[in-house]
């Protein structure tokens, strides 16, 4: 056993933690690499220092789960290697380039579990780059992890369960929430009733949060469209269309997001085959029910493989680890794997319900004005993309990137990629699946040039 390199787990959120736990239980010693200074991922992110608030204050109804994950991961100390504040920036030839403690190291691995998580899905609107506009996830991190509000009078905009959760968390923390603007019609929420038999406690909790927001005097608007964020140097207000006229609301902070999108760059660098996923409106790495990809020894778990939430991530992490053990010919609990698969299937059904209750805005690509900034890194506007599509006859996303620079900036299209694909599909009259996906490039996030050179020199030796 000892001659084989250790398994590598990327990400120490709910999926990565449960994967690590299952591998350690089987006697393996995985290496866990995570960008954050402490485990938990984004949803169960920990503070840098204690601040007098309880787990209940931070994680609400999910405090028990958060505490269990933090505790269980801490209990693995000594039986795994854990590199926090470390960036896995490249995968090549069975080796990972990892930046940690100011230097880059090459690590050989045998078995790779990618638990890379998700970020907010964004469709650009006028004013979205102004200071004071953050993603819903960003607003939540400021509140939970940094104990800060993104404004004294905040509007939460978009769709998805996170919209109401983040608004509710701010209201509970005593922050003034000016309004919740939901891009989906109110009628879509009736779809949640179909979720009652599956997960009554989640549906009822969502209804309670909405009711408490209303009771606290927070205005809830549905079917919001034609949104403009107002301000010159920072957010000063928000305007939206309602029944043929424009409504305006002053505010000094905005949280915005339209559900989540998976972080798939490392699966791409690992060579995994991708397929279009109509529900997530994105190309995702292919995987079987246990998380096996098209590449032997590479497994996926959690939101990085497709959006399903934290409860699913815990199960998928454990299941991927069990698959790894099975593929290595090691003892593994097949009955447990069956239970996990069944639970994931049930969560998958619920995810369909959520999608119908918080649908993707259907008309964004038609409506987005030419002057709206599409790519905030390279500062490419929607009109430039439209002209590039028409002028160069572009119908594929990487080609669009080459001629327009959309998605070419520091974020590698994490923020604008979904919108660029939607716009390209609309402009060319093609299906979203037909315009392709942005190819991932190493380094997956910016690293100092000196580090890359060090790693290169090491590899050459």
């Amino acid at each position: 056993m000892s001659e084989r390199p250790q398994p590598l787990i990327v990400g120490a959120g709910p999926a990565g933690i449960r994967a690590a736990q299952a591998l350690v239980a089987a006697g393996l010693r995985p290496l866990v690499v995570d960008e954050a200074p402490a485990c938990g991922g984004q949803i169960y992110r920990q503070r840098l220092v204690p601040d007098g608030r309880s787990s209940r204050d931070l994680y609400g109804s999910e405090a028990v789960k958060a505490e269990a994950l933090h505790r269980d991961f801490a209990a693995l100390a000594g039986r795994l290697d854990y590199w926090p504040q470390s960036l896995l920036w490249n995968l090549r030839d069975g080796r990972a380039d990892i930046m940690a403690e100011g230097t880059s190291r090459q690590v050989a691995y045998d078995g790779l579990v990618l638990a890379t998580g998700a970020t907010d899905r964004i469709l650009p609107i006028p004013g979205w780059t102004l200071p004071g506009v953050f993603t819903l996830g960003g607003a939540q991190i400021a509140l939970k992890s940094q104990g800060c509000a993104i404004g004294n009078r905040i509007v939460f905009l978009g769709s998805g369960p996170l919209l109401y959760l983040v608004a509710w968390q701010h209201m509970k923390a005593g922050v003034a929430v000016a309004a919740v603007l939901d891009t989906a019609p109110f009628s879509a929420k009736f779809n949640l009733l179909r979720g009652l038999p599956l997960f009554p406690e989640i549906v009822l909790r969502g209804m309670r949060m909405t009711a408490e927001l209303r009771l606290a005097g927070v205005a809830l608007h549905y079917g919001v469209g034609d949104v403009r964020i107002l301000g010159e140097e920072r957010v000063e207000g928000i305007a939206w269309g309602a029944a043929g006229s424009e409504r305006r609301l002053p505010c000094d902070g905005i949280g915005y997001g339209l559900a989540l999108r998976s972080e798939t760059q490392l699966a791409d660098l690992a060579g995994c085959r991708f397929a279009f996923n109509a529900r997530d409106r994105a190309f995702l790495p292919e995987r079987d029910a246990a998380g096996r990809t098209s590449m032997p020894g590479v497994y996926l778990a959690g939101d990085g493989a497709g959006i399903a939430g934290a409860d699913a991530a815990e199960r998928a992490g454990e299941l991927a680890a069990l698959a790894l053990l099975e593929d290595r010919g090691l003892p593994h609990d097949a009955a447990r794997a069956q239970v996990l698969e069944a639970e994931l299937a049930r969560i998958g059904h619920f995810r369909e319900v959520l999608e119908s209750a918080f649908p993707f805005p259907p008309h964004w690509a038609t409506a987005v004005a030419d002057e709206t900034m599409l790519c905030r890194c390279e500062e490419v506007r929607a009109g430039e993309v439209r002209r590039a599509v028409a002028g160069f006859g572009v119908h594929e996303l990487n080609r669009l990137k080459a001629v327009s620079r959309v998605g070419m900036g520091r974020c590698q299209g994490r923020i604008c990629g979904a919108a660029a694909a939607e716009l390209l599909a609309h402009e060319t009259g093609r299906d979203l699946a037909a315009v392709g996906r942005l190819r991932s490039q190493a380094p997956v996030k910016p690293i100092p040039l000196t580090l890359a050179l060090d790693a290169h020199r090491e590899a050459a030796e």
Partner: protein
Amino acid sequence: MPLLHRIARKDHRPIGFVLDGAPCEGREGDTLLTAILAQRERLRASDFSGEPRAGFCQMGACQDCWVALENGERLRACSTALVAGMRIVTGQRRAA
């Protein structure tokens, strides 16, 4: 008028740093992003048009919160802990 408003850690230990040449104070447990935006309303200027920016995702994905130390080293503000004595420069518009 700052962008971020503290609702916790208000009385944590102050951490001195220098922001664009002026002495400032953050709090123990701050990220650079928090320390700066708790007293300012911008972090940087966009690369091409010089528009004000103040981060977006706060989770290391959007890359829109890079600032620099006076020695030229670049730091992503949302994922860098504030350290006493840091000398940070922001708002530098890139030379054309």
